[in-house]
């Protein structure tokens, strides 16, 4: 205490050149946290928000009351999805570096979050993802070509060239559209879940934000509405320690866990090892069962680490120790599940290497196909006239006039060979992107 007030500006434990320090991360031993009944009152499980649900121990065994007792085949599927997620990310990152796509965001180190959670939920459940949840798409069987075409803004782009890379959506797969404005999907997921309850459906919603975005007002709106109406929704905070260059302390993580915020709203908050596939699966299953039984929402904090950059636009060695991920105490989710399967006698180094090779070949084949539908700069092009579609259900008069204006300056026919027309197409595409 001092005699006058002093502004506290949070500092991460380590910046570039410092020794990584994760002593602030409270970790419970695997199997140590009790598993309450799904119908339990939030006040009976306040410790869940402070401790950390973990299943995989240091000997690669699954232990304790949260062990979801999955079959080895399910674990192998989970491993495959996570590995595909990582191989896909690596390829897309490389393609951005080669200038094939304008932007990318990897989920390296956090693959267990999306993969385990999507596997624990039903196909009819609705996902409101953030931008680092490509694993949700993979689990639901999305053709990678579709995701790649979106990143390429090519003729098969689901967004018709209107969104920057990774802003996917999938109607048939019950995955909502990703927004660049953070946390907006959180209260929307609650509204979706309210409607499901109102209609008497069995479906639930799940949404994801980063710990950084939990500072947005939308987080508070989502939590309030979810609890007030006991909406069947799972609200997930992926605490990957870093929001671009600001550490989790800037979102209010210095004094209390993010999971503990659930308690303030009257809902369960569960803090889980975000690199432990089994623990994530179990916690998600618990929250889903609670939601389906009219028990209302659950806030889950998934403690993980963003191993890569925020996006292809930043260099993390400018704001955190270069080797910080190596010191991350919860390890690598893929390595941990692999070691568990090997310990079970259900996996081997050879099978892993073969799987990796198979997935790399698969991703290469997908990329080749995606490229055949064009890129931002080469091959077949989207018709710029389509930029006027879908602003409204029926295109109104003023947009028809603007489309005619665009046509009259010769931009209507992609690839007609004239340089002027190509310039105009580029301008039109730029306008569509900015719009």
């Amino acid at each position, binding site marked *: 205490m001092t005699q006058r007030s002093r502004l506290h500006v949070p500092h991460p434990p380590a910046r570039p050149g410092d020794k990584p320090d994760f002593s602030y991360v409270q970790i419970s031993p695997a199997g140590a946290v009790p598993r309450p009944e799904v119908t339990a009152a939030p006040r009976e499980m306040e410790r869940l928000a402070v401790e950390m649900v973990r299943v995989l121990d240091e000997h690669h065994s699954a232990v304790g009351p949260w062990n979801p007792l999955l079959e080895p085949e399910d674990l192998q599927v989970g491993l495959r999805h996570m590995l595909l997620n990582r191989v896909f990310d690596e390829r897309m990152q490389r393609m951005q570096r080669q200038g094939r796509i304008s932007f990318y965001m990897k989920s390296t180190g956090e693959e267990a979050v999306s993969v385990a959670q999507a596997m624990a939920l039903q196909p009819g459940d609705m996902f409101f993802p953030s931008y680092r949840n490509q694993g949700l798409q993979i689990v639901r069987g999305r053709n990678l070509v579709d995701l790649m075409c979106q990143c390429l803004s090519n003729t098969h782009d689901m967004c018709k060239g209107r969104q920057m890379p990774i802003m996917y959506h999938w109607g048939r797969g019950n995955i909502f559209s990703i927004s660049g404005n953070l946390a907006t999907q959180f209260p929307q997921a609650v509204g979706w879940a309210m409607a499901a309850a*109102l209609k008497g459906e069995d479906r639930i919603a799940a949404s994801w934000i980063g710990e950084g975005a939990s500072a947005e007002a939308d987080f508070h709106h989502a939590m*309030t509405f979810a609890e007030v109406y006991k909406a069947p929704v799972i609200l997930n905070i992926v605490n990957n320690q870093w929001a671009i260059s600001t550490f989790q302390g800037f979102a209010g993580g210095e004094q209390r866990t993010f999971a503990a915020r659930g308690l303030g709203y009257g809902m369960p908050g569960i803090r889980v090892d975000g690199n432990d596939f089994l623990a994530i699966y179990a916690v998600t299953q618990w929250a889903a069962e609670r939601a389906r039984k009219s028990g209302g929402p659950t806030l889950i904090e998934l403690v993980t680490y963003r191993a890569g950059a925020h996006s292809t636009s930043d260099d993390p060695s400018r704001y955190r120790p270069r080797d910080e991920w190596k010191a991350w105490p919860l390890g690598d989710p893929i390595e941990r599940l692999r070691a568990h399967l090997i310990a079970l006698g259900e996996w081997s180094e050879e099978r892993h290497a073969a799987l990796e090779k198979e997935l790399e070949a698969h991703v290469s084949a997908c990329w080749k196909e995606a490229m055949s539908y064009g890129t931002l700069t080469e091959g077949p092009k989207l018709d710029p006239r389509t930029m006027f579609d879908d602003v409204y259900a029926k295109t109104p008069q003023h947009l028809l006039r603007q489309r005619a204006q665009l046509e009259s300056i010769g931009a209507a026919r992609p690839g007609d060979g004239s340089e002027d027309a190509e310039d105009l197409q580029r301008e039109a595409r730029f306008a569509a992107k900015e719009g």
Partner: protein
Amino acid sequence: MNMVQALNSAMDIMLGRDPRVVIMGEDIGFFGGVFRCTDGLQRKYGEQRVLDTPIAEGGIVAAAIGMGVNGLKPVAEIQFADYIYPAFDQVVSELARLRYRTAGEYSAAVTIRTPCGGGIRGGQTHSQSPEGIFTHVCGIKVVMPSNPYDAKGLLISSIEDEDPVVFFEPKRIYNGPFDGDPNKPAVPWSSHPKGEVPGGYYTEPIGKAVITRPGKDVTVLAYGTMVHVAEAAVRLAAVDAEIVDVRTLAPLDVDTLCTSVCKTGRCVVVHEATRFSGYGAELVATVQEECFWQLEAPIQRVTGWDTPYPHAFEWEYFPGPQRIAAALQAAMQPA
């Protein structure tokens, strides 16, 4: 019916006709709304479909979007247009663009009702007219009726519309038409032909303006409360003006507006909102583009001053009949 009853009737009918319709907002359920627009609806349709909400405009619109994505047709009330700003991101970045950014795969047919405008001693936080902020956003429709008959028909159209609609309700004329003179006794809607509202279902089209007073000398473009103030101004100025009630600000009925101006050759644009970058600027630019060679005089604009809405100087601020009459006379000057 007055406008409150007409709006209530529109929601009553739509709740009855379409099980997807849900009404939501602050104080709108048990209490029936601070302006009584939803009075009795919760008793009739239950608290699941007429939903009281937390005081969180951003949450209301976000939840409505989620409900819309899940197949409902939410009608969300924002208690005062002045309170809509916490929901701005959800309206602009989400609601308005959802169809576009998903190439038609997802959309949310949300109607946002909100009382707007001054003249009720509401000061700067209960008097604003922010319609121009929303007409600037592509992907939403913006409506502002000027009488009970239109209010009901346009609200039913808005609820039925596949696109999101921001529906502004000029609260000064909820109970009766207002000609801009606060010292005159209040006039009820029962004395006005547009106060005659059928009890059943009917619609008024979005995207169509109407001529409320035919004339040949000069065209007045107005909407909401200002339609009635303009009528008083026309009497005061003793000119044969044609008054066009714009009614739906976006999409705009350019044909009706410009056919009138091309006929009269003169134009006065009136709104209660502030002037700079206001909706009137769009009207003036459109008229200029379409009617330049028919214009006999510069287009006049009469608006609120470019200040926040002052509590004590309400009637000096309000663009009343005298100011509009002066603009009409200026527009009538020979070239």
